[in-house]
């Protein structure tokens, strides 16, 4: 098997995950997918309505709460915790009401038990079904399965990917680590690829308390390679749009890797600072930037006889000042683009002199095109295209450290080691093992310039939609979705209207109305006392008093809600509380008016207060608040639409991989890679594996190589743009 790194890259996940992470995550993903398949087919669903089983006295044999993310330990623990509180218990007689309430219980517990702090969006879907209904047993039994789907997207990682990357690399631990102080991680790693052969080592890190960052050390060795580094990393967020997130690293790294007939090695100390802006502009583009100061040494051994070492330094000191700027932005609702430029000013010795300058560009494209449901509506089909164009050249006035030249293959070095935003520092081609596109056939040792293009095409052919089809195909679901959106728009509009001067002025007049109601109540009490035997009048008065008291309470409620509800308390219609009071008085006044003109005066005062408040309320421009509410809801609606119409819980897709790359100077020209494979996707986490053929192999390149990649796609990169 060839390199496990490289392969297709998603936008914000341009950096391949670590090899250990790949192995563990693949295992976890396969387990999850197998689990899903088993869950889907191992147990037959019960065919009758749930209430039928209740009436037949079925007992609950087993209750399960399943979650496709259960291979995350935190998720599994959460599900186990939820099961203990379910209204329905194993061994009990089946109750349809408790079965239904279990769905609500789980949904509420997940919402209230897992704070949304730091996260931007979350979907929780809970469904339930009955399985393994066994009428032959005594008593008859059944199993209950609650299926839970949740998505957590942090505000930061909606567009940036450090957190998601960490989750991909550490599926069993990252969820817990994020909220844990002083967490220590250590894990052995094992790996194989055609260039380095079998390798083993470890990764370790300590999360420092009080958000002071993390220190870590990694080491991996094979018979032909060594990689190791030790680092401290910290990060911080700021309220400034251009400096939304900052990361700093101090790192010592060393590697020795085969590159054709030679070994190249480099040891260096790196001081690095990188940052990202908030989404900017109307299309929500994000700026990335970074600077790095590096120093160390490099060696190349052994040099082959006749190796052209012009403009190369087999062994030397090394120093560099690097900087980059990048941007990621949505193009359309389903397409996104990322671009980067990096420049390095380097020295081949310990003195701060300029020996060479390196320029690098990266352009990446991600498109999810033509989404449509599968024939049986069980999953969503769409063409996913990932493309990357990379290129670079070295201006070398003097010597160039060999590792700084361009070496290509199915894994490349990255311009800023350790940085989450990645810029390739060499040509990427999946049909040639790591470092084996190096110009050796032309007597060279690495290239002075390069370009590479890689494209990956995939279409799901099997899977399951994230929102179950029994939900989305139910007309009630979409109807109620529209209901929810419409209601939310109204509620938000009212909420934003509370800041309007008109509503505040109307609220200011509420006390006067309350005082008038108090007067009215006293007057009605007096009339009641004066007519103790007139039962008909007393009934009318008590009705009016009740309505007046209710209006007073409702007005006080409006005061506590900053005016929400006030317009309906005093509305000039047939049903408002004030209208009811006026109607009551219209019945009472004819009976007492000749003897009590004050009641007529009080009614006039009520109407006057009503007119004044309504006049203030008319000054509110509803469009301003409605526009603001609509803007907020524009965050939600596209996300819901994507979830309902485009996102799969899991899917399997054939993959076509087409690559081209070359370095200069090299007399054999452009190399190609044409391959196929398969992609397993679990919501937005993709594992892709396949084989890429080299149609015209040259010495040392081989006929092809396996490729394997994992990435986390940003599902809502366009839906959340600009927010």
């Amino acid at each position, binding site marked *: 098997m060839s390199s496990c790194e490289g392969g297709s890259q998603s936008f914000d996940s341009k950096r391949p995950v670590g090899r250990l992470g790949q192995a563990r995550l693949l295992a976890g993903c396969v387990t999850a997918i197998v689990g899903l398949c088993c869950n889907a087919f191992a147990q037959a669903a019960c065919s009758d309505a749930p209430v039928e089983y209740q009436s037949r006295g079925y007992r609950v044999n087993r209750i399960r709460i399943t979650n496709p993310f259960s291979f995350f330990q935190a998720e599994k623990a959460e599900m186990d915790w939820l099961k203990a509180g379910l209204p329905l218990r194993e061994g009990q007689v089946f109750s349809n009401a408790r079965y239904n309430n279990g769905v*609500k219980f789980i949904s509420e517990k997940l919402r209230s038990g897992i704070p949304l702090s730091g996260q931007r*969006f979350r979907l929780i879907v809970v469904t339930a079904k009955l399985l393994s209904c066994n009428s032959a047993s005594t008593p008859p039994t059944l199993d209950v399965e609650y299926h839970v789907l949740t998505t957590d997207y942090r505000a930061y990682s909606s567009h940036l990917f450090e957190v998601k990357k960490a989750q991909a690399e550490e599926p069993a631990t990252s969820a817990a680590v994020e909220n844990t102080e002083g967490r220590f991680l250590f894990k052995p790693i094992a790996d194989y690829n055609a260039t380095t052969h079998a390798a083993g080592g470890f990764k370790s890190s300590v999360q420092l308390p009080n958000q002071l960052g993390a220190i870590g050390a990694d080491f991996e060795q094979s018979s032909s390679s060594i990689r190791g580094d030790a680092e401290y990393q910290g990060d911080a967020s700021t309220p400034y749009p251009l400096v939304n997130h900052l990361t700093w690293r101090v790192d010592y790294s060393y590697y020795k890797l085969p590159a054709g007939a030679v070994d190249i090695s480099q040891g260096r100390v790196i001081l690095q600072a990188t940052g990202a802006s908030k989404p900017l502009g109307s299309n929500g583009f994000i700026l990335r930037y970074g600077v790095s100061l590096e120093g160390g040494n490099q060696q190349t051994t052994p040099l082959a006889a006749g190796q052209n070492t012009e403009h190369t330094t087999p062994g030397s000191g090394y120093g560099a000042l690097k900087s980059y700027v990048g941007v990621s932005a949505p193009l359309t609702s389903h397409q996104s683009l990322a671009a980067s430029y990096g420049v390095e000013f380097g020295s081949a010795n310990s003195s701060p002199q300029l020996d060479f300058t390196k320029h690098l560009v990266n352009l990446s494209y991600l498109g999810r095109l033509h989404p449509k449901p599968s024939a049986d509506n069980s999953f969503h089909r769409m063409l996913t295209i990932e493309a990357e164009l990379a290129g670079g050249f070295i201006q070398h006035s003097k010597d160039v450290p060999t590792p700084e030249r361009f070496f290509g293959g199915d894994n490349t070095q990255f311009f800023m080691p350790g940085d989450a935003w990645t810029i390739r520092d060499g040509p990427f081609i999946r049909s040639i093992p790591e470092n084996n596109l190096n110009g050796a056939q032309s007597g060279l040792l690495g290239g002075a310039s390069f370009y590479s293009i890689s494209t990956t095409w995939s279409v799901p052919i099997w899977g399951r939609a994230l929102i179950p089809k029994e*939900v989305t195909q139910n007309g009630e679901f979409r109807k109620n979705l529209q209901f929810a959106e*419409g209601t939310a728009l109204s509620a938000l509009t009212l909420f934003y209207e509370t800041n309007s001067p008109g509503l505040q002025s109307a609220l200011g007049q509420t006390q006067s109305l309350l005082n008038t109601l108090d007067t009215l109540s006293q007057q009605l009490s007096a009339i009641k006392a004066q007519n103790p035997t007139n039962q008909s009048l007393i009934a009318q008065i008590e009705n009016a008093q009740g309505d007046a008291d209710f209006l007073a309470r*409702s007005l006080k*409620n409006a005061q506590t809600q900053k005016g929400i509800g006030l317009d309906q*308390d005093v509305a000039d219609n047939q049903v408002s509380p004030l209208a009811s009071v006026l109607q009551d008085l219209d019945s009472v006044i004819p009976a007492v008016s000749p003897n009590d003109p004050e009641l007529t005066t009080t009614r006039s005062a009520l109407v006057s207060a009503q007119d004044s408040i309504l006049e203030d309320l008319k000054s509110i421009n509803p469009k301003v608040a409605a526009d603001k509410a609509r803007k907020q809801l524009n965050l939600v609606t596209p996300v819901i639409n994507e979830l309902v119409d485009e996102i799969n819980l899991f899917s399997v897709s054939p993959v076509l991989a087409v690559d081209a790359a070359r370095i200069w100077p090299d007399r054999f020209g452009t190399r190609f890679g044409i391959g196929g494979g398969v992609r397993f996707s679990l919501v937005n986490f993709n594992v892709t594996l396949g084989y890429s053929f080299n149609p015209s192999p040259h010495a040392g390149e081989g006929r092809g190589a396996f490729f394997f990649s994992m990435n986390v796609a940003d599902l809502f990169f366009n839906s959340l743009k600009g927010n």
Partner: protein
Amino acid sequence: MGCTPVSVSFELITNDQLTKIAFGLDKTCNDDGSSGWAITFELDQRTTPTGTFAECLKLAVVVNDKNASKCEATARNGLDTNQTSYALGPAATAALDYKNGVGTLEQAQKQAQNVIAVRQDA
């Protein structure tokens, strides 16, 4: 299987981290074989991005199909601003009155029905 209970909940924190919006859709399978949907809308706020959210308003509405045009329009498009205001104002007051023993169930039901009656566009 005739009916599948479902609970769908959407939550979203706005860019300033101060407001949280939540939708909830709950489908219940009733003992008589019918199904019903209940919808909740919740708005929470906090004063600082790291503070604790406090509930500002919460709507819980049971959707029942009725023939009245206002009810149909409500089921189709959601509560309009009049209805939402009424639900949060007089109807909420009546519900609280009943809960606190101050008002009657009839009064609470009447005010709840008025939520449909005050719709503007039908």
